[in-house]
Structure formats: C-alpha cells, structure tokens
C-alpha cells in the first residue's frame, strides 16, 4: 500500500510543504511526457507546468513549476472539484489523467510524438509537438483551458495572434509556436482561455508545436490525431516490451526503463540526469540545481542497466556519445557535459523567479562543471568494460581513449577531489574516488588480460591497482568505528561506501563490509528505513539511489535475499502513482524532493532489481562473473 495518498485522496491530508504554499503541487504530483529531445511535466490537475523547447536544456516556455505567477502553464482542468486517477497506458509513455466529478468523468491524454517513429517516415511531422485530447466518458464535465506561455524562464511575455483556421501563433527568437485547438479560444492579456462543457462522447483535441528550422507543419485535429496517439502507444509498447527481464518487480523495472528512455537525447545519445532545474532537495532551501545535463558518473550504472535489459542500441549510443563528448578533453574528463558533449553552461541564478515553494535561488547551468571528481574515470572505464564483456567491440580509437584515461589515473589518483556528492566546500581524499580509480585500473588490467586493449601498460596498471587497494584498506578503514569511512583517515560515513562491493573491491559478505553496512544503517538510516547519503548540517531528504545501492549490496551477498527484497519493497512504496521517483524522499512525509524524475534513481532501481534477480537465479553480478560465464551470457544476449 503506497505511503502517500494519490492525488484524489490528497485533499484530506496536507504535508508541511503544502501548508507553506498550498497552491503548489507536490513534486511527485507530476508525470512526464517526452519525445527523447525534450520533456514536459504534467501535474495531477492536468497542467503542463514545465516545458523547454527544442531541447531539454533550452529556456522554458512553461515554468509554473518554478513560479506559479510568472512561469507560464497550459492547463486543461475541470472547472470544479474533481478526483483524479492517473496512469501511463501500460508499457508506454502516454499519460492518461482521469477526472471524476459528481456530474461526470473525462480522460485527458497527453503525449509528445517521437520523430523517430517509423509511422511518420512518409508523413509530415512538426519538429516538436504536444498532443492533448480530452474525452468525456460519462455524464458531463466543465473544463477550463488556460494557455499562458511565458518565454525564457518566465522572463519574456509572448504576443499571441490568431491566424484563422490555422490556430494561434506566437514567436520567440527564431522559433514559431502554434497552438491548434478544436475548442475556440479567447485571446487574453495572459494568453488564451476557454471554458467548455463536454458531454458523454464529446472530445477536445489540441496540438501545440514548435518549429525553428523550416516552415511549421500543422496537423489536422480530426480522427487522424487519434490514430497518431494509437501509433505512439504501439511504438512505446514495442520498445517497453523489448526489456529482456523476467525477474521480480518487472513493472517497476520496465517503467524505469521507459523513464530512462524519455531522458535520452536521441540526436546524440546523451542521457540527462533529470529534465528539470532547481526542484529543491529541501523545501524552502537553497539546494537547488540544474540537472538538465549529462553526468559521466551515471555512465557505468546506465550502461549496465541498458545492456542487461537488452537495449543494445541505447547502450551503444550512450557509450558512443560518452567517448565522442570526451574527445576534446581526453585524457582529462569533465564531470558533466551538455547534450552534444560541450562544456555545460556557467551557473546563473534567476533571482526574479520564486522557486518551487519559495525555494530560492533558481539556478540554470551547473558550477560542478569546474570540479575535479576523479571517480568519473573509473565509471567511464567500467562502462566500456561492461560493454566489452557483453560482446561489444572496443575499436582502436576506443582502446586508445581508455588507455589515455588509465594513464591519467596513474598520474593523479592520489589527488584530493570534490568527490561524488559534489560539495562546494573544497577538495578531500574521498574513498569513493579512490575506489573508482582502483576500478579503472582493475578493469583495464582485465581487458588487457583478455587481449581487448592493445598496447596498454598492464603491469603498471596492476601495480597502481595494488597501491590504491592498500591505501583504501589502510587509510579508509577506521578501526575505532569498525567501518570504511568517506574520507581517508576520517570518521564520517556516506552511502557510497556500499559500492565497494558493487565494483568488486570487497566481497559483500566480508567482515569489513558487513561491519560497514551495520555502521551505515546505524548512522544513515531514517525512521522510514531509507538511507540518507550522508549526515550534514543542512538537512535534506533520504537519497533514493542510496536505498537502491543498499538493496543491491544485500543481494550481492551482504545480507539474505529476503532482506534485499525487504529493502527494495521499502523503496518502491515511495514511487508516485505513475511509478516515477525524484532524487530524494522526504523522510517524514514520503514526498519526492529534488529534480524530477531522476535518471540515477531509476537506473539504481533497475540495477537493484537485476541483482536481486541474479541472486535468485544463483548468478553472479555480470561485471564480476568469470570469463566463461560472461561469454555464455554474451552469446545469449547476442542471439
């Protein structure tokens, strides 16, 4: 039974954050639709409160998510009180919001057609489009349609003009936006508005599109729009049902894969961390960051998840993107990249926006772009190694790049860095960074031993790997608290220590890891059983990904299978009604915190389910299987 009530029941229960600003939907009230180029967030009341066109990191055209007054939105909502039930059409990213009132009920369907869909190959297609359709399925229901776009993160008012039967149009910079509606809309000073009563069987159709490279394509709002929805459903279902996973929690795994697919930028293969900026990690606080970029850190987990679910094309595209993106800086790596592999923009604050629930400042760009985080080298090398052991071919260029990363690690692994949690308080000798430097050396040695890395100084990598191992065992182990610690010679813990087993550095069932796990539970577990990532003065939510790591650690041998299931079950209580997760979970209310939905959490969830499934089948985690088992798995995957 979900801890949080769904939208229809929520009116009876208010969380502290709702009391602060009752006009704000909770973060987990949102669903996502997208076309693998951009995404929109749709609230439970049918309001699109976030949209950036033409790509994830472009300025917004709807940003009520960050400022209710000036951000802009497009809502199609019942005029009176109504209960709400939402779902994605099974195994698809087509969102259905079902409104129930005393007078009748209606279904709102929201989607963004994918340009790559084979159905459209011989057809005109808008560059970017949102399709919305609302149909009354019983009685009658009055709807308010409020279309109030504001360009450039709520900064620039737009001038909407009517062009006869073509619809409403406004331009921003080089781009033209067209809204076509089957209901007549009245242009107001804020946008366009209508109030329409729908009776059983009646429907309204809308198409909102954007074009900046050529004359726009304007689609008719007749029955062909319904056919387009059906084709999109079929295309998504075809993709979703390709997931080669037959273990427990299949629904959660497939939903996570679908969410991950939505966060993929198809033209380059990049996967962004989240489609939003500045949703707070603490309501009313300043832990608000822009996540619309691609972090290399996520690479290893993402590749593994995609490969093991059978999504070879996406895994290969992401690896290609990763190696292309890093080409200009090799052998140095940046922490995060833009969608096309450029340096992420400089961080700026948008002081005129209120922020979600008054959580200021709203930031765009990300200052972590200038940080040193040595763990990314291990993550990139591990991702490539996973790809190779699954049967992927490392071409000469890729081999050279990997050797370059390895040589960089040889020269720099002993440096302090900002580490995985990206604090802005300076550099330290993080255990997690050392672990990933060890991982880089270890994977390169393994690839070299299998003849997959010509010309690599394997012996040197082996020596460095031993040196790093010794340093971790001697200085990252705290005898007094009987635990590995976050920083060499330190006292503090953080949840990334659980990854010592994931990367194969320490057996999950070893005394040191078991003892570390106990310490982590003692210090980092919240009342609801989920883990904080660390303990700091600035209170934030429990970190969803860390609970995935915990379930995975238990599945890897740190605990019993039942314990792994229990932890996983604890986590899935906190998905929203659509199966989506944010970055963090409020330990008191269970509300989602931080940017939403979060790729890393969904990747972690897939990883945990995979490890549990492998444990049930008596298989080893794929990255650490012996060569014979790996080859067998590879041939199965390939066939």
């Amino acid at each position, binding site marked *: 039974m979900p801890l949080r009530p769904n939208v229809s029941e929520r009116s009876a229960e208010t969380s502290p954050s709702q009391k602060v600003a009752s006009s704000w939907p909770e973060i987990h009230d949102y669903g996502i639709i997208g076309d693998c180029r951009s995404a929109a967030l749709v609230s439970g009341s049918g309001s699109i409160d976030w949209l950036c066109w033409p790509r994830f990191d472009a300025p917004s055209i709807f940003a009520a998510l960050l400022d209710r007054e000036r951000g802009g939105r497009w809502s199609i909502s019942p005029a009176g009180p109504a209960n709400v039930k939402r779902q994605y059409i099974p195994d698809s990213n087509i969102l259905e919001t079902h409104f129930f009132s005393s007078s009748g009920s209606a279904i709102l369907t929201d989607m963004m057609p994918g340009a790559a869909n084979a159905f459209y*190959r011989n057809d005109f297609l808008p560059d970017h489009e949102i399709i919305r359709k609302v149909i009354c399925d019983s009685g009658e229901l009055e709807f308010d349609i409020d279309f109030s776009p504001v360009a450039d993160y709520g900064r620039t008012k737009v001038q909407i003009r009517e062009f*006869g039967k073509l619809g409403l149009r406004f331009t921003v910079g080089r781009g033209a936006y067209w809204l076509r509606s089957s209901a007549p809309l009245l242009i107001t000073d804020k946008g366009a508005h209508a109030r329409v009563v729908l009776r059983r069987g009646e429907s309204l159709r809308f198409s909102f599109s954007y074009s900046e*490279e*050529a004359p726009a394509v304007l689609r008719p709002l007749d029955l062909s729009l319904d056919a387009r929805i059906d084709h999109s459903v079929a295309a998504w279902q075809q993709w979703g049902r390709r997931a080669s996973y037959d273990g427990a929690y299949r629904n959660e795994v497939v939903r996570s894969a679908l969410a991950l697919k939505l966060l993929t930028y198809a033209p380059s293969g990049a996967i962004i961390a989240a489609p939003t900026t500045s949703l707070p990690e603490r309501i009313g606080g300043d832990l608000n960051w822009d996540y619309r970029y691609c972090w290399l850190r996520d690479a290893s987990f993402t590749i593994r998840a995609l490969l093991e679910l059978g999504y070879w094309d996406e895994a290969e595209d992401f690896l290609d993107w990763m190696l292309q993106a890093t080409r200009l800086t090799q052998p140095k790596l940046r922490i995060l990249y833009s969608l096309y592999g450029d340096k992420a923009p400089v961080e700026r604050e948008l002081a005129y926006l209120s922020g979600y629930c008054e959580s200021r400042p709203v930031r765009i760009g990300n200052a972590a772009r200038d940080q040193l985080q040595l763990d990314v080298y291990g993550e990139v090398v591990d991702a490539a190694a996973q790809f190779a052991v699954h049967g992927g071919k490392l071409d000469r260029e890729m081999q050279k790049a990997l050797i370059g990363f390895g040589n960089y690690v040889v020269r720099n692994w002993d440096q302090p860095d900002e580490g995985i949690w990206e604090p802005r308080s300076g550099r330290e000798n993080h255990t997690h960074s050392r672990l990933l430097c060890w991982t880089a050396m270890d994977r390169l040695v393994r690839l070299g031993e299998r003849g997959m890395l010509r010309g690599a100084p394997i012996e040197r990598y082996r020596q460095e790997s031993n040196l790093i191992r010794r340093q971790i065992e001697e200085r990252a182990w705290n005898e007094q608290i009987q635990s590995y610690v976050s920083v060499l010679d330190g006292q503090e813990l953080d949840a990334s220590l659980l990854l010592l087993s994931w990367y194969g550095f320490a057996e999950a069932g070893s005394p040191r890891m078991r003892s570390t796990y106990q310490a982590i539970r003692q210090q980092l577990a919240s009342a609801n059983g989920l883990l904080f990532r660390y303990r700091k003065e600035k209170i934030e939510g429990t970190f969803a990904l860390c609970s995935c790591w915990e379930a995975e650690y238990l599945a890897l041998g740190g605990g019993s299978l039942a314990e792994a299931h229990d932890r996983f079950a604890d986590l899935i209580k906190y998905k929203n009604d659509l199966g989506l997760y944010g970055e963090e979970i409020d330990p008191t209310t269970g509300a989602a915190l931080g940017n939403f939905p979060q790729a890393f959490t969904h990747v972690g969830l897939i990883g945990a389910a995979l490890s549990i499934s492998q444990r049930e089948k008596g298989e080893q985690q794929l990255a650490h299987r012996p060569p014979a088992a790996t080859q067998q798995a590879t041939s199965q995957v390939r066939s």
Partner: protein
Amino acid sequence: MNWPSWLLSGFLATLALSTLLATTQGLGLTRMNLPYLIGTFVTTQREKARFYGFLIHLLNGWIFSILYVLVFEARHMANWWFGALIGLAQALFVLTVGMSLMPGIHPRMASEQHGPNANRQLEPPGFMALHYGIQTPVSIFIAHAVFGAMLGSLYQLAK
C-alpha cells in the same frame, strides 16, 4: 546573347543565392527554406524534399537567370548594380505576389481560410513571408540582390 557566359554566370549566381539563403536560415534569421518548400511539391519525406528541392531550385535559378540575361541584352547593359536592381525587383515580386499565391498553388500548404487537412499541413508564408520570421524579407532581398549582382558582373566579364 552569349550562351556559354549565361550558363556559367547563371550557375554560379544560383549557387551563391542558395548558399546565402541556407546561411540566413542556419543563422536563425528566417525559417524560410526554399529547397524544402519546393521539394514538398513532389514528396512528403522531409530529407528527400530538401534534396529534391535543392536540385529543382538550382535548375530553376539557372533557367530563371535567362530572364536577367535577356534584360541585360535588351538594355545593352550588364554590370553588378543593374543586376542587383533586377534582383531586388524579383525579390519584391516573389515576396508579394509569389508568397500570396503559395497556399493556392502548393499542394501541401495549409491556408488561414481552410486550415490544415490530411494533405495540406505546411505553414503558409503570409504577407512578405513574415510568418517565417520578421527578417525573412531582408534575407530574400539580400540573396536576390547578390544573385543579380553576380550575374551582372560575371556575364559582363565572360562576354
């Protein structure tokens, strides 16, 4: 009339016209994409439309340059500024008369009167093609002036 000179100057001037139009479009000054608009006369496939449209536009420009050459010969004058003047006149004609006729003659263009349907879905250009961006007329005037100027000066040189 010097046929080889027309062939050469007409071809080079059309190339320059196409390049300028593509550049202004790439710089985001306009969404006017002539190859795409022309190509969609013959196909609905976007990438093919761009390619076919480019070929047709090239051929069209080449043939159209014959009119310029006929004016040069009639006036016994061929130089860059006279060519540019004809180019500006042509641009004015294209933007006013040509664009207003487009929804009627283009088989896939929608109109304000009828809206889009299964066959007609392309955004119409509007007066002076302003629907495709307020700098579209500037882009068209400059490109055609350069087309005419090149034609005038190259035809004169090769004569």
